[in-house]
C-alpha cells in the first residue's frame, strides 16, 4: 500500500487539512481521517455518515421472524402433542419464541454489518499511526494519484511533518 498522511493536534487543524485536500482536488471518499474519539463537532466528522445498517438490521429481524415461525410450527406438527387443551399449532405461546428470534436476528445482523461496513477484521494493512491513541488526528490519503499535491496540501494546513508509507 502507499499512503501519505500527517498528524494534527487539534480538530481545527485537521479540518483545515481536509479543506486543503479538497481544494487540491482530492475527493472526500479518498480522504482518511482517524481520531481517538468521534469528532462530531467538526464538519469532517460528518463524512461517510450514510449507512444502510438500519435496513440490514430490519432484514435480519425479518429472517429471524420467518425462521421462528417455521421452527415453532414445524416442531409442533412433527410430533402433535396435545398440551393443556391448546391447539397443536398454538400461536400465542409461539409468539414468544418468534419475538425472541426476531430480535436476535436484528442484533446479529447489526453486529455483522458493523464488522463488514466498518472494515473491521480486515487482513489488508491499513493507513494508521499509533500516535492517534495519544490524541493526534490523522489526515491522509490512501494511494494518492498525485502525491506531491497531497503533500503540499497537508503542509499548507500546518503539519510540520509528512509521513509516507
Amino acid at each position: 500500500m502507499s499512503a501519505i498522511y500527517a498528524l494534527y493536534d487539534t480538530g481545527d487543524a485537521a479540518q483545515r487539512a481536509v479543506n486543503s485536500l479538497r481544494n487540491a482536488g482530492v475527493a472526500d471518499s479518498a480522504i482518511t481521517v482517524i481520531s481517538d474519539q468521534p469528532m462530531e463537532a467538526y464538519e469532517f466528522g460528518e463524512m461517510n455518515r450514510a449507512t444502510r445498517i438500519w435496513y440490514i438490521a430490519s432484514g435480519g429481524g425479518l429472517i429471524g421472524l420467518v425462521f421462528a415461525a417455521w421452527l415453532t410450527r414445524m416442531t409442533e406438527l412433527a410430533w402433535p402433542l396435545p398440551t393443556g387443551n391448546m391447539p397443536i399449532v398454538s400461536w400465542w405461546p409461539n409468539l414468544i419464541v418468534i419475538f425472541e428470534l426476531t430480535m436476535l436476528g436484528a442484533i446479529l445482523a447489526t453486529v455483522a454489518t458493523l464488522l463488514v461496513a466498518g472494515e473491521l477484521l480486515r487482513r489488508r494493512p491499513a493507513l494508521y499511526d499509533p500516535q492517534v491513541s495519544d490524541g493526534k488526528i490523522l489526515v491522509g490519503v490512501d494511494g494518492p494519484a498525485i502525491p506531491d499535491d497531497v503533500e503540499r496540501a497537508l503542509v499548507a494546513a500546518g503539519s510540520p511533518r509528512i509521513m509516507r508509507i
Partner: protein
Amino acid sequence: MSDESARNITEDLLRPLQRTTWRFYVLVAFLGSIVAMGLGTWAYQMYMGFGMTGINNPVYWAFYITNFVFWIGISHAGTLISAILRLVNAGWRRPVTRCAEVITAFALMIGALFPIIHLGRPWLFFWLMPYPSSRLIWPNFRSPLVWDFFAISTYLTGSVLFLFLPMIPDFALIRDRSTGLRRRIYGALALGWRGTTKQWHRLESAMQIMAVAIIPVAVSVHTIVSFDFSMAPVPMWHSTMFGPYFVAGAIFSGIAGLIIAMAALRKFLHLEEYLHPVHFQNLGKLLLMMSLLWAYFVFAERLTVWYGNDTPEMNVFYVTQRGSFAPLYWTMVFCNFVLPFSILAIRKLRTITGCVIASFGVVVGMWLERFLIVVPSLSHKFLPYSWGHYQPRPVEIMIMTSTFAAMCLLYVLFSKFVPIISIWELKAGEHPSPALSPMAAHEHPLGETHA
C-alpha cells in the same frame, strides 16, 4: 478538550490495568476461595444426590430458583438502564454505562447457572435446548421453560455484544500502548479498529440499533421468567400482573446493584473524578421511583387477593402476613420501601452513602421477595394435606454465597483487564461543542444536558 484533560482521562482509567497492588491479589484469592468452595459443594451435591438439599415434596423450587430469579433481576440494571440512557442521550450516562452493562453480562451468566444446578444432573442440561432427539421429538415449545431458554439466550447474546461493541475503541487504545503478549491479545480484541470517521459512524448506528432492540428484549426476559410462575395454577402465582410486577422488581434490584458496584469502584479504583455525586443522586431518584412502583404493585397484588377472599390464596396470604413467613415479609417491606423511601425522598440524605445504604436494603429486600414468591405458595397449595415446609440446607447456602463471591470476582477481574469507564465516550463527552452542550455547572459537572 485540552490535551492534558484527555491525557488525564486516559492515564486515570488505564491505571488499574497497569498497576497491580497486593490488595488485588488478596481480594482475588479470598473471593476465588469462596467460589472454589461453592464449586466443591456443587460437586458434592452431584455426588451425594439432590437429597442433600432441603428441596422436597411439596417445595420443589426453593433456594436455587429464588436465586435464579434474583440474579436475572439484578441483570436488568445494566443493559436496560444503559440502553435507555443512550437513546435519550443523557450526558451523565457516560461514566455509568459500562459499569452497568458488565453487571448484566455477569449476573445473567450466574442466573442462568441456577436452573442447571437445580437439575441435579447438570450434565444433561443440553436437554433444555431446542433440538430433536434421536426419535425426532422436539422440546415442547408451549412450555415456559423452553421460552426461558430462548429469552435468556437472546438477552445474554445481546447484552454481551452491547457491552463488547463500545469496548472496541478502548481495546485499540490499550493495544497501541502495550507490547508483547498483551499487545497481541488487545490487538485481537480491537478487531483492527483504527478510528476512521466511517468506523465511528457505524459504531454509533450499531449502538443505537442495539439499544432499541435490547430494551424490549430485557422487558421480555423478566416477563418470561414471571411466566414460569404465572402459567401454573398455584395460589398467588396465577396472576396477570406477574409480568410487569417482575419487570419492575428486576429494574428496582438492578439499579440497587449498580449503585453498590459504582460506589465500590469509586472508592477502590479512586474514580472520584469521574463518578460524581450527581450520578448517585440521579440513580438514587430512579431507585426511589422504583421503590414507589414496587410498593404500588405489592399493594395491588395483596388487595386483589384479600378482596377476592379465595381460600387457597388467603392461606398463602396469611402465612406471609402473620404466619411463619411474616418476619421475612415485613423485613422485605422495610428493606424495599420504608428504608429507601426514608433515605432517598429527603434531598439531604440522598448522598453517596445514603444511596448505598438504601441499595443494600433493596438487594436484601428483593432477594426476600423472590423467596417469598417461590416458597410460601409451594408449601401451601390447594389441599391442606399436601402442605409442607422448607428449610435451606448448608449445601444450598454455600452455593448461593459462592455466587455472590463469583459476581464480585468477575467484576474485580473485569475492571483489572478492561477500563471500567469507557475512555472514548468520556473524552467525547468533554469535547468542546458549545452548540451541543451547555457549560458545565454544579449540577452537571460533565457539562452536558440531563435527559
